């Protein structure tokens, strides 16, 4: 076991609790005392229902949300979001690929801006070259560089969203429900893409999902969240075959499985 790349210790996020004119707002804990660790190259899933605190966790790790207690350590040091290196090393893929892309910018312009600002490439020509490589990596035609997000379908936009996240060569990819807005057939292609990228680039993946079957296919370990707490964690095989907590059992029971296919052997 190598040293974890990311460690969350006693992480908590509390909203509200502010003094108003006449009363004090009751505080709400979106996350309470969360301990998690991810090894380099591993895919860790956080599962749970809406409001369980999954996205809050993702946002804390990506630096979009400031935790109110606890600490985050990244690569052995406290995560410092003022340091450009740490910001670059952790990138996020969002659920809605449309609202996470600038509708007015051509894909090429959006990607090369990112590359130049972060100093990934020295000049515009190199940036365009790198953009083409990135699109190829996510299975998009190079012609996409000249078009705006509105020209693409949901699945294509999600591919672009992944290319955007990969542009700055991150070591940790945080994906918050990246496939739940997509059709099944497209969902499969995005999952396969994430799996391939994770292997080829040695990415560490923090995957937020409510779909247990997806988690089963993509991730090594899983943490189950309920009401802001991590109630159970372990390897995917362990947790799914022998869930310890009642909530995990309920979650597993609610996922409907399809009957096994009966088709001729040649077709299979």
């Amino acid at each position, binding site marked *: 076991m190598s040293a974890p790349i990311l460690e969350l210790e006693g992480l908590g996020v509390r909203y509200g609790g502010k003094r108003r004119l006449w009363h004090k707002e009751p505080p709400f804990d979106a996350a309470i005392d969360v301990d998690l660790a991810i090894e380099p190259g591993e895919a860790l899933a956080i599962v749970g229902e809406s409001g369980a605190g999954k996205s809050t966790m993702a946002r804390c790790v990506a630096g979009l949300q400031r935790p109110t207690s606890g600490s985050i350590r990244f690569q052995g040091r406290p995560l410092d979001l003022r340091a450009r290196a740490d910001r670059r090393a952790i990138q996020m893929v969002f659920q809605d690929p449309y609202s996470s892309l600038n509708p007015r910018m051509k894909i090429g312009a959006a990607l090369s801006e990112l590359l130049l600002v972060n100093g990934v490439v020295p000049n515009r020509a190199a940036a365009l070259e790198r953009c083409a490589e990135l699109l190829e990596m996510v299975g998009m035609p190079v012609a996409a560089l000249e078009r705006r997000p509105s020209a693409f379908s949901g699945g294509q936009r999600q591919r672009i969203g992944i290319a955007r996240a990969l542009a700055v060569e991150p070591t940790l990819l945080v994906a918050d429900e990246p496939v739940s807005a997509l059709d099944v*057939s497209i969902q499969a292609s995005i999952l*396969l893409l994430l799996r391939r990228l994770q292997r080829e680039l040695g990415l560490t993946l923090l995957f937020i999902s*409510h779909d*247990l079957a997806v988690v089963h*296919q993509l991730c090594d370990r899983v943490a189950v969240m309920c009401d802001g707490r991590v109630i159970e964690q372990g390897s995917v095989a362990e947790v799914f075959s022998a869930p310890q907590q009642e909530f995990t059992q309920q979650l597993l029971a*609610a996922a409907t499985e399809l009957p096994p296919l009966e088709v001729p052997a040649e077709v299979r």
Partner: protein
Amino acid sequence: MSGEPLLSVRDLRIGVAGRDKAAAFEPVVGASLHARRGEVVGVVGESGSGKSLTLRAIAGLLPAGVEVTGGAIDVDGIDVTAAGRSQLRGMRGGVVGMVFQEPMTALNPTMRIGAQIVEAVAAHANVSRAAARGRSLELLERMGFTEPERRYRLYPHELSGGMRQRVMIAIALAGEPSLLLCDEPTTALDATVTMRVLDLLVGLAADLDIAVVLVTHDLGVVARTCARVVVMYAGRMVEEGLAADVLQRPRHPYTLALLRAVPTRDATIEELEAIPGAPPILTAELPGCPFAPRCAFSEPACLEAVRTEAIERGRTTACRRHELLAVNGSLA
């Protein structure tokens, strides 16, 4: 589950008028669907397959500029395509109830939920306020709300997504319809809540002896709730049959591809297969099978014509080569 179907849609075509002839297109080309009382029928397909438009056409709720251009829709003896505005108004709510995907936008945020159900009850029956209130409480209770009197006074924002959807179902049932149309009713909900809403729908179909048509893109939902299922692709019906049959022994390559794309807990990601290519652009005329360009079993003749065949009773497929998928079939 016998006798004449309550709902029958035959060879429905829906057209969208464009600015000129070239921009006009048909998002639905030949959808057929039947539902009997007490039965839950699923309509599955991906975005753009025409499933939601088909459902809206049944309720006479097509958006402006979109029209039924062919085929017939019969709901409990009413010819929906020929019915006038007032006849459709009478039908909606009274004969046909509808539940939409987004319960938050469908409910009025400034009205208590009780008042919204009362409004729906009063719109369909000439009853006193007290009787309407009683009926609303009864509906809430039927929807599985504990303490209906207390819930009655709540506003939509005070309810969870699953509760809102159950309020929507209560409103849809207020006029005692015999057909309930549900457009992706559980897409925005959590798995455990989804299960509860689906079980409620199945229970309602049986207890109230109504037909339920459920449009969804989730094959798991179909497996859980539907007796029969219609699979749509590019505005066409590609396969129809008993849900258990279709999901386990698909006889159309598109259904098979869709089933293979669903992640399961007992398969590895390597067994997951994405469908190559993209759905066809519907503005173009498609004489043949719309799935042929993406299909592993297609032959040149597939691009020329489609023939919908009945394989067995109540089971049809639009694939010429469906025998390749039959368990005892042989490779041609």
